[in-house]
């Protein structure tokens, strides 16, 4: 009897342990293994770092060649001192892992289409999209080239070894809390993961296209109207390389194929496909002013890349010092080197080139097996790639993907992204599929001593194309719209192209020397803000992509008028909330609101708009009125056309509408096609305003009429878990402001560098050095960033070890 009871009690105890040792899903929500998770000595409590945690220590690793030290300052920025470069990258890998391991791996899981392994079948379509785009294929190809270059290979090998040294020596209790919540373990790092991370950036920055939507628009509206709705170039454009620049004859001449009119421009498609897209708001500002415009006489370089706002941040700040170079700036957890920053001689940064380097071709297969496709008058054999997608809670899926001369067949009968493709096959040609060793660019910049070194470094940058800005202590400033871009005939790749022969393929790449650039221009500054790199009317190549003009306009205007520039002036310019788009759009709105038709309430809102100071500061109600009125106008003007069919379409850009109504009050699209009468600009603006007021009243009664509350900026954790996010941040700016902070998108790393003999640099990013939500350093920079303040960036010398800013010392030895 006792024995039976013993057995029963033991069974219950064991059962309870098993229940508490595994993950459960209840009502679609997953519950972590509670025993393991709650245990104060193993679980999440161990991630609750004491406020006075000691980050110092002495580590021994046999992989090291020599001794090295890391000094962590009061902001937890590591200053790495290594005797050689291999050790420096080892230490960087170790530190990235120590502070950001979960994020590094998660980003790579996302890049490689492996999220289903973590969260189950709800991510299958996300994963298949990445696999079918050829993310892993692209990373593998690039890695081959990266590993053939001994400099990149050593750099990656050392970095990978450093990451793995951390993982191997980590205790269970030190596992980042996200692993504990989602109940999985980190894998070993590999060079392929670094390559995948770089493709993740390529997807974000050079993955944009509207080929399906544009094809639909062309079919619905015809080519003539298409060019009105999605015009090439802008009246208000102030390109990166000023208008009037003379370009040499192009080295690559492109010609549209003879069949273009019948098979391309006049072809009727109706494509129900809306691929998953990178944020169209990805953008950035950078500029460099020459010494003749600054108070100190030294050049100043500024950069603020705008990407999705996330915690942990994409960026990690550090200094890397070796006998060969001494670089400081923002690094990517997941890749070696300093990406946006400066060294003892010069400073460098990037904005996105916004060029379209991703096209689709319609493939004709012999049958559904996809084994043969028609190309240049014969049946060609496809290659197949089998993608194994692990899915939590069930068996893995094997996705079979046909590869053609163009690239992988992304959409076919088995995968349509959940939409109707009418049984067609579309292969994707993406520049990121081509091999390139883009990582070497950062290595070159970190070592650069002058313009020639910078120029040599950026030749490695192929995809994603970037506007690479440069300033040097010898006084040089420069910008190159750099990357390897396909040379296109006009409109090539804007629509789906026929894939039955080679005539629609890219005919060559623009020689890198012919990319738009400016070195030491007369006007004393160079700048970029994602606008057209050159005047489309004179630049000899077709510039496919999407190029918002307004930030560039106000930056150039302000820089032109400035003199005796100081770093403080540059900080205020970077955080400027003035809305130049509203400056141009408000007069036409106010002029066309028919006051006689307004109710008293509507008149009050009209006055708010009229008396607004054109600044997107947090307290401005006028900014909210303007934003909602403009959005409403876009819907009134385009909505009738765009909802004519159920096909996916994209709204024309705001510059298209503004420029149209500024010069043509009888712009064809102002008419509402659903009414018998002909609407005018005045009708549209008044009606849009009245509709906006309905929303404004709701917003006002919710107490959110002030711009900061209306915009409601937030920085979400990569898992979207709200408690790990920072919500409701009181920060101004927004679309078309230099401070381009939107709801979930904005300037990630703001940097101002004055290249005086002793460099004066300032920076801040919306996050913190630690990726651990349980650390005081998790979001320690957020409030500083919100308030538009900067931190001085301290370039430490080895002799400064006893400086009071040094809080901890880590030694690395063999």
């Amino acid at each position: 009897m006792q024995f039976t009871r013993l057995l029963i009690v033991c069974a219950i105890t064991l059962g309870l342990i098993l229940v508490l040792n595994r993950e459960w899903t209840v009502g679609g929500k997953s519950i972590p293994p509670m025993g393991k998770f709650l245990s104060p000595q193993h679980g999440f409590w161990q991630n609750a770092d004491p406020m006075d945690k000691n980050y110092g220590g002495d580590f021994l690793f046999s992989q090291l060649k020599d001794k090295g030290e890391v000094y962590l300052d009061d902001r937890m920025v590591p200053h790495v001192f290594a005797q050689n470069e291999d050790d420096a990258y080892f230490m960087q890998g170790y530190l990235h892992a120590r502070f950001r391991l979960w994020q590094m791996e998660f980003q790579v899981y996302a890049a490689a289409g492996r999220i289903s392994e973590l969260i189950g079948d709800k991510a299958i379509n996300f994963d298949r999209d990445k696999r079918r785009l050829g993310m892993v294929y692209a990373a593998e190809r690039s890695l081959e080239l990266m590993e053939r270059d001994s400099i990149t290979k050593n750099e990656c090998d050392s970095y990978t070894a450093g990451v793995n040294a951390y993982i191997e020596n980590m205790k269970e209790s030190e596992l980042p809390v996200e692993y504990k919540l989602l109940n999985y373990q980190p894998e070993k790092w590999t060079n392929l993961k670094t390559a995948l991370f770089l493709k993740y950036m390529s997807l974000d920055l050079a993955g944009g296209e509207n080929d399906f939507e544009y094809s639909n628009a062309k079919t619905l509206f015809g080519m003539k109207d298409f060019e009105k709705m999605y015009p090439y170039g802008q009246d208000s454009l102030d390109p990166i390389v000023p208008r009037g620049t003379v370009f040499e004859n192009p080295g690559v001449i492109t010609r549209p194929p003879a069949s273009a009119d019948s098979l391309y421009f006049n072809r009727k498609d109706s494509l129900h496909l809306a691929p998953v897209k990178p944020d169209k708001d990805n953008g950035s500002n950078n500029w460099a002013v020459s010494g003749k415009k600054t108070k100190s006489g030294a050049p100043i370089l500024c950069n603020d890349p705008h990407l999705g706002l996330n915690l942990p941040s994409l960026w990690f700040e550090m200094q890397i010092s070796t006998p060969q170079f001494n670089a400081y700036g923002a690094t990517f957890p997941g890749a070696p080197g300093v990406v946006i920053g400066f060294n003892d001689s010069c400073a460098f940064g990037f904005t996105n080139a916004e060029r379209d380097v991703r096209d689709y071709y319609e493939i004709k297969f012999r049958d559904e097996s996809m084994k043969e496709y028609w190309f240049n008058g014969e049946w060609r054999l496809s290659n197949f790639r089998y993608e194994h997608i692990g899915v939590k809670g069930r068996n893995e899926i094997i996705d079979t993907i046909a590869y053609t001369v163009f690239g992988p067949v992304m959409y076919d009968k088995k995968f349509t992204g959940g939409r109707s493709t009418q049984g067609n096959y579309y292969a994707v040609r993406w520049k990121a599929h081509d091999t390139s060793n883009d990582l070497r660019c950062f290595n070159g910049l970190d070592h650069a001593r002058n313009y020639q070194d910078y120029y040599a470094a950026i030749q490695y940058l192929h995809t994603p194309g970037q506007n690479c800005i440069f300033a040097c202590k010898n006084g040089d400033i420069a910008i190159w719209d750099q990357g390897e871009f396909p040379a296109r005939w006009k409109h090539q790749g804007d629509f789906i192209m026929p894939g039955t022969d080679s005539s629609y393929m890219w005919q060559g790449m623009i020689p890198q020397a012919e990319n738009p650039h400016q070195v030491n221009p007369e006007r004393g500054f160079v700048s970029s803000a994602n606008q057209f790199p050159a005047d489309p009317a004179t630049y000899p190549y077709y510039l496919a992509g999407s190029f918002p003009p307004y930030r560039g306009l106000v930056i150039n205007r302000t820089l032109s008028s400035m003199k005796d520039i100081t770093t403080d002036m540059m900080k205020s310019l970077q955080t400027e909330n003035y809305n130049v788009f509203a400056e141009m759009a408000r007069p036409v709105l106010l002029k066309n609101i028919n006051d006689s038709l307004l109710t008293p309430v509507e008149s009050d809102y009209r006055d708010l708009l009229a008396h607004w100071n054109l600044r997107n500061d947090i307290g401005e109600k006028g900014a909210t009125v303007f934003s909602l009125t403009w959005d409403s106008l876009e819907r009134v003007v385009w909505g009738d056309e765009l909802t004519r069919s159920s096909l996916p379409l994209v709204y024309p850009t705001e510059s298209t509408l503004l420029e149209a109504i500024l010069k043509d009050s009888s712009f064809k699209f102002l008419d509402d096609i659903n009414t018998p009468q002909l609407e005018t600009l005045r009708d549209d603006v008044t009606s849009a305003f009245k509709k906006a007021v309905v929303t404004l009243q709701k917003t006002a009664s919710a107490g959110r009429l002030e711009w900061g509350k209306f915009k409601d900026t937030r920085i979400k954790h990569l898992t979207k878990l709200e408690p790990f996010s920072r919500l409701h941040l009181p920060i101004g700016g927004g679309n078309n402001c230099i401070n381009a902070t939107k709801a979930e998108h904005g300037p990630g790393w703001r940097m101002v560098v004055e290249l005086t003999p002793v460099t004066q640099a300032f920076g801040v990013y919306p996050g913190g050095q630690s990726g651990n939500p349980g650390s005081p350093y998790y979001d320690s920079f957020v409030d500083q960033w919100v308030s538009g303040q900067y931190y001085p960036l301290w370039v430490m010398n080895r002799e400064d070890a006893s400086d009071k800013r040094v809080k901890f010392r880590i030694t690395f030895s063999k």
Partner: protein
Amino acid sequence: MKFIISTLLTALLGFVSGLYLPWWGIALAALIPSAVIHQGHGRSFLSGFLGIFILWGALSWWIDSKNNSILSQKIAQILPLGGSVFFLVLLTAFIGALVAGLAGLAGSYLRRAPEPNQAI
């Protein structure tokens, strides 16, 4: 007295097991004292329960106070406990205590099990 010794021994063994064993080491930490120290089934359960309740409660409370509740406030929203750190500490202590209490009970049965002829 036996009860207090058993409880404290459970807490002590629980702490040591946490350094070397996975989280379920607390079951052994509760089982051993109640198998060695003779007391009734109820008391064995209670000493295991209390030993780990005190250990896990105190440890989590201590960690939390050193961390200014930065993490516990977030976890208490995710779990969801309405953001209450107090309930999170209580839940932690209770989950550990439940496992240990049962293990303590098993220990007391284990102590008697080798004497099957005592069975009526």
